[in-house]
């Protein structure tokens, strides 16, 4: 039923043109589109493949397997970089812990003695720092 309706519409549409121009004229018009050199369609696929092959460096396509492979490589590179960075950070921490333990007491004392004035300044600054909590306690008790 639907097909018949479509066909009727098509017939009506074609008739509109055929009332203006003869059917023969329309058929002849279309004939020019069918004028092709001998064996054109036989040689066309081969000619096309040659052109595609020549353009191949520009052509970039990915098969589903190729996409999966690239995704896997990407995940591998990211995860291995992450693991490598984490493990090297741990190594640094261990190394620094060991190096502190390895320093002898004499060396530490010599360092402190040499830099005693830094410690003095730190203490002085602590001494002059107003103890707000204590001051507040005194104020509250006076009131």
């Amino acid at each position: 039923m639907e097909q018949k309706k479509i066909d009727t519409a098509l017939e009506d549409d074609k008739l509109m043109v055929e009332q203006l121009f003869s059917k023969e004229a329309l058929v002849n018009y279309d004939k020019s589109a069918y004028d092709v050199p001998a064996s054109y369609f036989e040689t066309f696929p081969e000619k096309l493949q040659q052109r595609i092959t020549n353009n191949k460096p520009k052509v970039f396509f990915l098969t589903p397997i190729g996409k999966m492979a690239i995704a896997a490589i990407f995940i591998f590179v990211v995860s291995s970089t992450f693991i490598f960075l984490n493990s090297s950070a741990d190594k640094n921490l261990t190394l620094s812990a060991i190096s502190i333990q390895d320093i002898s007491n004499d060396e530490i004392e010599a360092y402190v003695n040499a830099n005693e004035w830094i410690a003095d300044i730190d203490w002085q600054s602590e001494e002059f720092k107003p103890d707000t909590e204590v001051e507040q306690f005194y104020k509250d008790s006076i009131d």
Partner: protein
Amino acid sequence: MQSDQELILQFQQSIQREQNFTQLVKKHQAKVYHQIKRMVNDHDDADDIAQMVWIKIWNKLDGFKMESEFSTWLFRIAYNETLNFIAKQKRQGSNTSSTDILDYENTASHTDAPKSSEIQIKLDQGIKQLPEKQQFVFMLRYFEEYNYEKIASITGTTVGGAKANYHQAIKKLEEFLKKS
């Protein structure tokens, strides 16, 4: 003979890509070529556009999701390539269509009976003066006998838009006949 869907699936799965693609070309090349030739009237131009269309198909076939018919997609690319070609020619100031008409007039006057050739020339000129989109719709409907749904998908319009294009084309042809 394998269906379009089977050929495309095998192509996408990298099974004998070139062979499957060639099968697709062999199945559809004539229809695409004829439609392009109707628009440009010159074999070399039609051949060039047809090659560009198939190269685009080759490049994009992996991403084709088969939501529409392959032939609809193919004709849509052909439609775009043909219109781009014509627009490019117009920008370059090429006047091939008018020379084609003159050639046609000369050959027609020698071959056909006077009355018949006169109608032929008018038809040719009438179709040439239509906007490209209307020409394309007119040819798909009259010569290829496509339904409006398919024409709408090819030209990227609605069914109503495709119908309107066809009827406007007929109206313009009628007006052209009256004027001449």
